[in-house]
Protein backbone atom coordinates (compact mmCIF):
# COMPACT_ATOMS: atom_id res chain seq x y z
CA UNK A 1 0.00 0.00 0.00
CA UNK A 2 2.69 2.37 1.02
CA UNK A 3 4.74 1.63 -2.05
CA UNK A 4 1.68 1.98 -4.23
CA UNK A 5 0.73 5.32 -2.79
CA UNK A 6 4.31 6.50 -3.06
CA UNK A 7 4.55 5.64 -6.71
CA UNK A 8 1.17 7.18 -7.34
CA UNK A 9 2.26 10.34 -5.61
CA UNK A 10 5.47 10.56 -7.63
CA UNK A 11 3.50 9.94 -10.80
CA UNK A 12 1.06 12.61 -9.82
CA UNK A 13 3.95 14.94 -9.22
CA UNK A 14 5.31 14.21 -12.68
CA UNK A 15 1.93 14.82 -14.21
CA UNK A 16 1.52 18.02 -12.31
CA UNK A 17 4.75 19.30 -13.80
CA UNK A 18 3.98 18.34 -17.37
CA UNK A 19 0.22 18.08 -17.26
CA UNK A 20 -2.33 20.18 -19.02
CA UNK A 21 -5.59 21.10 -17.42
CA UNK A 22 -8.37 21.24 -19.90
CA UNK A 23 -11.61 22.80 -18.93
CA UNK A 24 -10.09 24.08 -15.72
CA UNK A 25 -10.70 27.74 -15.23
CA UNK A 26 -9.69 30.39 -12.80
CA UNK A 27 -12.96 32.08 -12.04
CA UNK A 28 -13.41 35.72 -11.19
CA UNK A 29 -16.73 37.19 -10.27
CA UNK A 30 -17.71 40.43 -11.92
CA UNK A 31 -21.09 41.77 -10.89
CA UNK A 32 -22.47 38.37 -10.11
CA UNK A 33 -21.22 36.85 -13.37
CA UNK A 34 -18.34 34.46 -13.67
CA UNK A 35 -15.47 35.09 -16.05
CA UNK A 36 -12.47 32.99 -17.03
CA UNK A 37 -9.64 35.01 -15.57
CA UNK A 38 -6.83 33.14 -17.33
CA UNK A 39 -8.33 33.99 -20.72
CA UNK A 40 -8.66 37.64 -19.84
CA UNK A 41 -5.11 37.86 -18.47
CA UNK A 42 -3.55 36.28 -21.54
CA UNK A 43 -5.70 38.36 -23.88
CA UNK A 44 -4.51 41.50 -22.10
CA UNK A 45 -0.93 40.39 -22.65
CA UNK A 46 -1.66 39.75 -26.33
CA UNK A 47 -3.32 43.15 -26.71
CA UNK A 48 -0.41 44.81 -24.92
CA UNK A 49 2.07 43.09 -27.26
CA UNK A 50 0.11 44.20 -30.33
CA UNK A 51 -0.38 47.80 -29.24
CA UNK A 52 3.13 48.21 -27.85
CA UNK A 53 4.94 46.79 -30.86
CA UNK A 54 2.85 48.77 -33.34
CA UNK A 55 3.34 51.99 -31.37
CA UNK A 56 7.10 51.45 -31.31
CA UNK A 57 7.31 50.50 -34.98
CA UNK A 58 4.98 53.09 -36.48
CA UNK A 59 5.73 55.98 -34.12
CA UNK A 60 7.99 57.78 -36.56
CA UNK A 61 7.60 56.44 -40.11
CA UNK A 62 10.59 56.85 -42.41
CA UNK A 63 10.50 57.11 -46.17
CA UNK A 64 13.13 54.39 -46.29
CA UNK A 65 11.64 52.03 -43.69
CA UNK A 66 13.65 50.77 -40.74
CA UNK A 67 13.51 47.11 -39.74
CA UNK A 68 10.47 47.25 -37.48
CA UNK A 69 8.57 49.58 -39.77
CA UNK A 70 9.43 47.37 -42.70
CA UNK A 71 7.95 44.35 -40.94
CA UNK A 72 4.76 46.21 -40.06
CA UNK A 73 4.46 47.51 -43.61
CA UNK A 74 4.83 43.96 -44.85
CA UNK A 75 2.09 42.80 -42.47
CA UNK A 76 -0.18 45.63 -43.58
CA UNK A 77 0.44 44.82 -47.23
CA UNK A 78 -0.40 41.20 -46.49
CA UNK A 79 -3.66 42.11 -44.73
CA UNK A 80 -4.62 44.49 -47.51
CA UNK A 81 -3.90 41.80 -50.05
CA UNK A 82 -6.10 39.28 -48.23
CA UNK A 83 -8.91 41.85 -47.89
CA UNK A 84 -8.67 42.93 -51.53
CA UNK A 85 -8.77 39.40 -52.90
CA UNK A 86 -11.76 38.46 -50.74
CA UNK A 87 -13.80 41.67 -50.59
CA UNK A 88 -12.93 43.40 -53.85
CA UNK A 89 -12.25 47.01 -54.60
CA UNK A 90 -14.23 48.38 -51.63
CA UNK A 91 -11.98 46.63 -49.14
CA UNK A 92 -10.66 49.83 -47.56
CA UNK A 93 -13.00 50.22 -44.57
CA UNK A 94 -12.67 46.53 -43.68
CA UNK A 95 -8.89 46.44 -43.36
CA UNK A 96 -8.95 47.27 -39.61
CA UNK A 97 -11.44 44.50 -38.88
CA UNK A 98 -9.72 41.82 -40.94
CA UNK A 99 -6.29 42.97 -39.79
CA UNK A 100 -7.17 43.01 -36.11
CA UNK A 101 -8.84 39.63 -36.47
CA UNK A 102 -5.74 38.15 -38.07
CA UNK A 103 -3.23 39.77 -35.73
CA UNK A 104 -5.18 39.00 -32.55
CA UNK A 105 -5.66 35.34 -33.43
CA UNK A 106 -2.13 34.95 -34.73
CA UNK A 107 -0.45 36.50 -31.70
CA UNK A 108 -2.81 34.61 -29.37
CA UNK A 109 -2.00 31.27 -30.97
CA UNK A 110 1.71 31.87 -31.03
CA UNK A 111 1.72 33.20 -27.50
CA UNK A 112 0.26 29.86 -26.42
CA UNK A 113 3.12 28.07 -28.12
CA UNK A 114 6.02 30.43 -27.46
CA UNK A 115 5.41 32.31 -24.23
CA UNK A 116 6.28 30.35 -21.08
CA UNK A 117 2.90 30.89 -19.47
CA UNK A 118 3.34 27.95 -17.12
CA UNK A 119 6.01 29.78 -15.13
CA UNK A 120 3.14 31.77 -13.65
CA UNK A 121 1.22 29.56 -11.29
CA UNK A 122 -2.48 30.13 -10.92
CA UNK A 123 -4.49 28.86 -7.97
CA UNK A 124 -6.74 27.05 -10.42
CA UNK A 125 -6.51 26.38 -14.10
CA UNK A 126 -3.54 27.60 -16.11
CA UNK A 127 -2.53 30.31 -18.52
CA UNK A 128 -2.65 29.36 -22.20
CA UNK A 129 -3.52 30.90 -25.53
CA UNK A 130 -6.73 32.95 -25.32
CA UNK A 131 -7.97 31.13 -28.41
CA UNK A 132 -7.80 27.97 -26.30
CA UNK A 133 -11.11 28.99 -24.76
CA UNK A 134 -14.42 28.59 -26.53
CA UNK A 135 -15.58 31.99 -25.27
CA UNK A 136 -12.87 33.78 -27.27
CA UNK A 137 -13.45 31.93 -30.50
CA UNK A 138 -17.22 32.26 -30.28
CA UNK A 139 -16.85 35.97 -29.52
CA UNK A 140 -14.69 36.45 -32.62
CA UNK A 141 -17.01 34.35 -34.78
CA UNK A 142 -20.08 36.28 -33.62
CA UNK A 143 -18.31 39.55 -34.37
CA UNK A 144 -17.64 38.22 -37.86
CA UNK A 145 -21.34 37.44 -38.26
CA UNK A 146 -22.30 40.92 -37.11
CA UNK A 147 -19.69 42.36 -39.45
CA UNK A 148 -21.00 40.65 -42.55
CA UNK A 149 -24.59 41.47 -41.72
CA UNK A 150 -23.56 45.08 -41.22
CA UNK A 151 -21.64 45.07 -44.51
CA UNK A 152 -24.58 43.66 -46.45
CA UNK A 153 -27.18 45.93 -44.85
CA UNK A 154 -25.16 49.13 -45.37
CA UNK A 155 -24.39 48.19 -48.96
CA UNK A 156 -27.84 47.08 -50.08
CA UNK A 157 -30.30 48.07 -47.38
CA UNK A 158 -33.11 45.65 -46.75
CA UNK A 159 -32.57 44.21 -50.21
CA UNK A 160 -29.78 42.27 -48.55
CA UNK A 161 -32.33 39.77 -47.27
CA UNK A 162 -33.23 39.00 -50.84
CA UNK A 163 -30.18 36.73 -50.95
CA UNK A 164 -32.06 34.18 -48.82
CA UNK A 165 -34.27 33.26 -51.74
CA UNK A 166 -31.65 33.93 -54.30
CA UNK A 167 -31.30 30.94 -56.59
CA UNK A 168 -34.75 29.61 -55.69
CA UNK A 169 -37.01 30.10 -52.66
CA UNK A 170 -36.66 26.38 -52.01
CA UNK A 171 -33.19 27.04 -50.64
CA UNK A 172 -34.51 29.43 -47.99
CA UNK A 173 -34.01 27.03 -45.06
CA UNK A 174 -30.47 26.20 -46.17
CA UNK A 175 -29.64 29.86 -46.64
CA UNK A 176 -30.89 30.66 -43.15
CA UNK A 177 -29.02 27.69 -41.76
CA UNK A 178 -25.85 29.07 -43.31
CA UNK A 179 -25.98 32.07 -41.00
CA UNK A 180 -25.75 29.69 -38.06
CA UNK A 181 -23.19 27.32 -39.50
CA UNK A 182 -20.78 30.08 -40.44
CA UNK A 183 -19.99 31.30 -36.90
CA UNK A 184 -20.26 27.77 -35.59
CA UNK A 185 -17.69 26.41 -38.01
CA UNK A 186 -15.43 29.43 -37.58
CA UNK A 187 -15.36 29.20 -33.80
CA UNK A 188 -15.08 25.44 -33.53
CA UNK A 189 -12.39 25.19 -36.16
CA UNK A 190 -10.17 27.63 -34.32
CA UNK A 191 -10.98 26.29 -30.87
CA UNK A 192 -10.47 22.68 -31.85
CA UNK A 193 -7.25 23.25 -33.69
CA UNK A 194 -5.57 25.27 -30.97
CA UNK A 195 -6.77 23.04 -28.15
CA UNK A 196 -5.78 19.89 -30.01
CA UNK A 197 -2.39 21.33 -30.84
CA UNK A 198 -1.65 22.21 -27.22
CA UNK A 199 -2.94 18.85 -26.04
CA UNK A 200 -0.81 16.91 -28.51
CA UNK A 201 2.27 18.81 -27.44
CA UNK A 202 1.54 18.35 -23.75
CA UNK A 203 0.75 14.65 -24.04
CA UNK A 204 3.87 14.04 -26.10
CA UNK A 205 5.97 15.99 -23.63
CA UNK A 206 4.57 13.96 -20.76
CA UNK A 207 5.28 10.72 -22.60
CA UNK A 208 8.67 11.50 -24.18
CA UNK A 209 10.10 14.68 -22.75
CA UNK A 210 12.97 14.74 -25.27
CA UNK A 211 13.34 15.61 -28.97
CA UNK A 212 10.12 13.90 -30.12
CA UNK A 213 7.75 16.79 -29.28
CA UNK A 214 9.89 19.33 -31.15
CA UNK A 215 8.58 18.60 -34.67
CA UNK A 216 5.07 18.58 -33.26
CA UNK A 217 5.75 21.97 -31.69
CA UNK A 218 6.85 23.35 -35.04
CA UNK A 219 3.79 21.80 -36.63
CA UNK A 220 1.79 23.56 -33.92
CA UNK A 221 3.33 26.92 -34.82
CA UNK A 222 2.50 26.28 -38.46
CA UNK A 223 -1.07 25.25 -37.64
CA UNK A 224 -1.51 28.34 -35.47
CA UNK A 225 -0.49 30.64 -38.29
CA UNK A 226 -2.65 28.81 -40.79
CA UNK A 227 -5.66 28.96 -38.47
CA UNK A 228 -5.27 32.71 -38.02
CA UNK A 229 -5.03 33.15 -41.78
CA UNK A 230 -8.04 30.90 -42.37
CA UNK A 231 -10.15 32.77 -39.85
CA UNK A 232 -9.26 36.17 -41.30
CA UNK A 233 -9.67 34.99 -44.90
CA UNK A 234 -13.05 33.42 -44.21
CA UNK A 235 -14.24 36.51 -42.36
CA UNK A 236 -13.20 38.62 -45.34
CA UNK A 237 -14.83 36.16 -47.73
CA UNK A 238 -18.13 36.30 -45.81
CA UNK A 239 -18.06 40.09 -45.82
CA UNK A 240 -17.25 40.16 -49.52
CA UNK A 241 -19.97 37.65 -50.24
CA UNK A 242 -22.62 39.73 -48.50
CA UNK A 243 -21.43 42.88 -50.28
CA UNK A 244 -21.28 41.54 -53.81
CA UNK A 245 -24.17 42.29 -56.11
CA UNK A 246 -26.50 39.61 -57.38
CA UNK A 247 -27.36 39.23 -60.97
Amino acid at each position, binding site marked *: *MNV*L*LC*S*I*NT*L*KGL*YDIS*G*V*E*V*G*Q*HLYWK*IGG*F*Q*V*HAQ*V*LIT*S*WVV*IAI*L*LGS*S*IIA*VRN*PQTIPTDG*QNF*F*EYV*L*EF*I*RDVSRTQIGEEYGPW*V*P*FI*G*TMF*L*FIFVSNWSGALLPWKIIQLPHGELAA*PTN*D*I*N*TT*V*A*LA*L*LTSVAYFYAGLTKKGLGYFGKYIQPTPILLPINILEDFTKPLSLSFRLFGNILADE*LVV*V*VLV*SLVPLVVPIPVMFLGLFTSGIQALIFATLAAAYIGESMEGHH
Partner: protein
Amino acid sequence: MANMIMASSKPLSPPSLSSPATSRPRISLPKFPKLPNTQLLSLKSLSLAATAAATSLTLAPPSLAEEIEKAALFDFNLTLPIIMVQFLILMVALDKIYFTPLGKFMDDRDAAIKEKLSGVKDTSGEVKQLEEQAAAVMRAARAEISAALNKMKKETQVEVEKKLAEGRKKVDAERQEALAQLEKQKEDTIKALDSQIDALSQDIVKKVLSL
Protein backbone atom coordinates in the same frame (compact mmCIF):
# COMPACT_ATOMS: atom_id res chain seq x y z
CA MET B 1 -8.65 15.69 -20.49
CA ALA B 2 -5.13 14.87 -19.43
CA ASN B 3 -6.54 14.54 -15.99
CA MET B 4 -8.86 11.97 -17.36
CA ILE B 5 -5.92 10.32 -19.05
CA MET B 6 -4.21 10.48 -15.70
CA ALA B 7 -7.18 9.02 -13.97
CA SER B 8 -7.38 6.12 -16.34
CA SER B 9 -3.70 5.38 -16.64
CA LYS B 10 -2.57 5.89 -13.09
CA PRO B 11 -4.42 3.12 -11.36
CA LEU B 12 -3.40 0.85 -14.20
CA SER B 13 0.30 1.19 -13.71
CA PRO B 14 0.59 0.73 -9.95
CA PRO B 15 -1.51 -2.43 -9.66
CA SER B 16 0.55 -3.95 -12.41
CA LEU B 17 2.46 -5.52 -9.55
CA SER B 18 -0.58 -7.48 -8.59
CA SER B 19 -2.11 -8.01 -12.00
CA PRO B 20 0.20 -10.91 -12.92
CA ALA B 21 -0.86 -12.48 -9.67
CA THR B 22 -4.46 -12.26 -10.70
CA SER B 23 -3.88 -13.65 -14.14
CA ARG B 24 -1.49 -16.39 -13.12
CA PRO B 25 -3.99 -18.49 -11.22
CA ARG B 26 -6.25 -18.67 -14.23
CA ILE B 27 -3.50 -20.03 -16.39
CA SER B 28 -2.04 -22.19 -13.66
CA LEU B 29 -5.37 -23.49 -12.46
CA PRO B 30 -5.40 -26.53 -14.73
CA LYS B 31 -1.79 -27.25 -13.79
CA PHE B 32 -2.22 -27.03 -10.06
CA PRO B 33 -5.83 -27.78 -9.34
CA LYS B 34 -5.16 -29.04 -5.84
CA LEU B 35 -3.79 -25.87 -4.44
CA PRO B 36 -6.71 -23.86 -3.13
CA ASN B 37 -4.42 -21.98 -0.83
CA THR B 38 -2.69 -20.20 -3.60
CA GLN B 39 -6.00 -19.34 -5.16
CA LEU B 40 -7.19 -18.00 -1.91
CA LEU B 41 -4.00 -16.11 -1.56
CA SER B 42 -4.34 -14.72 -5.03
CA LEU B 43 -7.93 -13.83 -4.38
CA LYS B 44 -6.81 -12.05 -1.31
CA SER B 45 -4.17 -10.22 -3.24
CA LEU B 46 -6.74 -9.42 -5.93
CA SER B 47 -9.10 -7.89 -3.44
CA LEU B 48 -6.15 -6.08 -1.96
CA ALA B 49 -5.21 -4.75 -5.34
CA ALA B 50 -8.77 -3.72 -6.01
CA THR B 51 -8.98 -1.81 -2.79
CA ALA B 52 -5.62 -0.31 -3.55
CA ALA B 53 -6.85 0.77 -6.94
CA ALA B 54 -10.03 2.13 -5.44
CA THR B 55 -8.15 4.01 -2.76
CA SER B 56 -5.67 5.26 -5.30
CA LEU B 57 -8.55 6.54 -7.41
CA THR B 58 -10.08 8.32 -4.51
CA LEU B 59 -7.04 9.12 -2.42
CA ALA B 60 -4.04 9.72 -4.62
CA PRO B 61 -5.33 12.78 -6.47
CA PRO B 62 -7.81 13.91 -3.87
CA SER B 63 -9.19 16.76 -5.89
CA LEU B 64 -9.34 14.85 -9.15
CA ALA B 65 -12.93 13.74 -8.99
CA GLU B 66 -14.42 17.12 -8.35
CA GLU B 67 -12.07 18.68 -10.85
CA ILE B 68 -13.27 16.36 -13.56
CA GLU B 69 -16.82 17.16 -12.62
CA LYS B 70 -16.10 20.84 -12.83
CA ALA B 71 -14.06 20.58 -16.02
CA ALA B 72 -16.00 22.65 -18.48
CA LEU B 73 -14.84 22.91 -22.06
CA PHE B 74 -17.98 24.61 -23.28
CA ASP B 75 -18.45 26.98 -20.43
CA PHE B 76 -19.96 30.19 -21.76
CA ASN B 77 -20.08 33.14 -19.44
CA LEU B 78 -19.29 36.82 -19.21
CA THR B 79 -15.84 36.19 -20.76
CA LEU B 80 -17.46 36.15 -24.19
CA PRO B 81 -18.85 39.70 -24.23
CA ILE B 82 -15.73 40.99 -22.49
CA ILE B 83 -13.56 39.50 -25.24
CA MET B 84 -15.88 41.06 -27.83
CA VAL B 85 -15.52 44.49 -26.27
CA GLN B 86 -11.78 44.06 -25.92
CA PHE B 87 -11.55 43.08 -29.56
CA LEU B 88 -13.51 46.13 -30.67
CA ILE B 89 -11.35 48.42 -28.54
CA LEU B 90 -8.23 46.76 -29.93
CA MET B 91 -9.60 47.22 -33.45
CA VAL B 92 -10.19 50.94 -32.94
CA ALA B 93 -6.82 51.41 -31.25
CA LEU B 94 -4.90 49.50 -33.92
CA ASP B 95 -6.75 51.43 -36.59
CA LYS B 96 -5.74 54.70 -34.97
CA ILE B 97 -2.09 53.86 -34.35
CA TYR B 98 -1.29 51.35 -37.05
CA PHE B 99 -3.59 50.70 -40.01
CA THR B 100 -4.67 54.22 -40.91
CA PRO B 101 -1.43 56.18 -40.28
CA LEU B 102 0.92 53.62 -41.79
CA GLY B 103 -1.47 52.92 -44.67
CA LYS B 104 -1.75 56.62 -45.42
CA PHE B 105 2.02 56.99 -45.17
CA MET B 106 2.57 54.11 -47.57
CA ASP B 107 -0.02 55.44 -50.04
CA ASP B 108 1.52 58.90 -49.92
CA ARG B 109 4.95 57.44 -50.52
CA ASP B 110 3.66 55.40 -53.47
CA ALA B 111 2.04 58.50 -54.92
CA ALA B 112 5.23 60.52 -54.44
CA ILE B 113 7.35 57.84 -56.10
CA LYS B 114 4.93 57.60 -59.02
CA GLU B 115 4.94 61.36 -59.38
CA LYS B 116 8.72 61.42 -59.34
CA LEU B 117 8.85 58.68 -61.95
CA SER B 118 6.48 60.50 -64.28
CA GLY B 119 8.48 63.68 -63.56
CA VAL B 120 11.61 61.89 -64.75
CA LYS B 121 9.82 60.96 -67.98
CA ASP B 122 8.80 64.60 -68.45
CA THR B 123 12.35 65.86 -68.02
CA SER B 124 13.51 63.46 -70.69
CA GLY B 125 11.16 65.26 -73.09
CA GLU B 126 12.43 68.54 -71.74
CA VAL B 127 15.99 67.45 -72.35
CA LYS B 128 15.12 66.62 -75.95
CA GLN B 129 13.53 70.00 -76.38
CA LEU B 130 16.55 71.68 -74.86
CA GLU B 131 18.83 69.74 -77.17
CA GLU B 132 16.81 70.87 -80.15
CA GLN B 133 16.97 74.39 -78.89
CA ALA B 134 20.72 74.12 -78.52
CA ALA B 135 21.01 72.74 -82.06
CA ALA B 136 18.89 75.62 -83.36
CA VAL B 137 21.05 78.10 -81.51
CA MET B 138 24.15 76.49 -82.96
CA ARG B 139 22.70 76.60 -86.46
CA ALA B 140 21.74 80.22 -86.04
CA ALA B 141 25.18 81.05 -84.72
CA ARG B 142 26.82 79.27 -87.61
CA ALA B 143 24.63 81.09 -90.11
CA GLU B 144 25.41 84.36 -88.42
CA ILE B 145 29.10 83.67 -88.46
CA SER B 146 29.11 82.69 -92.11
CA ALA B 147 27.06 85.77 -92.95
CA ALA B 148 29.47 87.95 -91.05
CA LEU B 149 32.36 86.24 -92.80
CA ASN B 150 30.81 86.85 -96.19
CA LYS B 151 30.08 90.42 -95.36
CA MET B 152 33.62 90.93 -94.12
CA LYS B 153 34.99 89.33 -97.25
CA LYS B 154 32.87 91.61 -99.40
CA GLU B 155 33.89 94.64 -97.42
CA THR B 156 37.56 93.84 -97.63
CA GLN B 157 37.23 93.19 -101.32
CA VAL B 158 35.51 96.49 -101.83
CA GLU B 159 38.21 98.21 -99.84
CA VAL B 160 40.93 96.45 -101.73
CA GLU B 161 39.31 97.43 -105.02
CA LYS B 162 38.93 100.96 -103.85
CA LYS B 163 42.55 101.10 -102.87
CA LEU B 164 43.52 99.55 -106.15
CA ALA B 165 41.47 102.10 -108.05
CA GLU B 166 43.01 104.85 -106.00
CA GLY B 167 46.45 103.58 -106.75
CA ARG B 168 45.67 103.29 -110.38
CA LYS B 169 44.31 106.83 -110.48
CA LYS B 170 47.40 108.09 -108.74
CA VAL B 171 49.63 106.27 -111.14
CA ASP B 172 47.56 107.59 -114.03
CA ALA B 173 47.85 111.11 -112.76
CA GLU B 174 51.57 110.77 -112.35
CA ARG B 175 51.85 109.39 -115.83
CA GLN B 176 49.74 112.19 -117.21
CA GLU B 177 51.89 114.68 -115.44
CA ALA B 178 55.01 113.08 -116.74
CA LEU B 179 53.60 113.01 -120.25
CA ALA B 180 52.62 116.65 -119.95
CA GLN B 181 56.09 117.51 -118.79
CA LEU B 182 57.56 115.56 -121.63
CA GLU B 183 55.28 117.38 -124.04
CA LYS B 184 56.29 120.70 -122.59
CA GLN B 185 59.90 119.83 -122.78
CA LYS B 186 59.37 118.80 -126.39
CA GLU B 187 57.66 122.05 -127.17
CA ASP B 188 60.37 123.98 -125.40
CA THR B 189 62.97 122.14 -127.29
CA ILE B 190 61.05 122.73 -130.50
CA LYS B 191 60.70 126.42 -129.65
CA ALA B 192 64.38 126.64 -128.91
CA LEU B 193 65.06 124.85 -132.10
CA ASP B 194 62.67 127.24 -133.92
CA SER B 195 64.59 130.26 -132.70
CA GLN B 196 67.79 128.58 -133.68
CA ILE B 197 66.21 127.82 -137.00
CA ASP B 198 65.47 131.52 -137.46
CA ALA B 199 69.03 132.44 -136.68
CA LEU B 200 70.30 129.66 -138.83
CA SER B 201 68.06 130.56 -141.67
CA GLN B 202 69.24 134.16 -141.33
CA ASP B 203 72.73 132.93 -141.44
CA ILE B 204 71.96 130.80 -144.41
CA VAL B 205 70.17 133.66 -146.07
CA LYS B 206 73.06 135.98 -145.28
CA LYS B 207 75.53 133.54 -146.54
CA VAL B 208 73.53 132.93 -149.61
CA LEU B 209 72.68 136.59 -150.20
CA SER B 210 76.06 137.68 -149.46
CA LEU B 211 77.02 136.03 -152.52
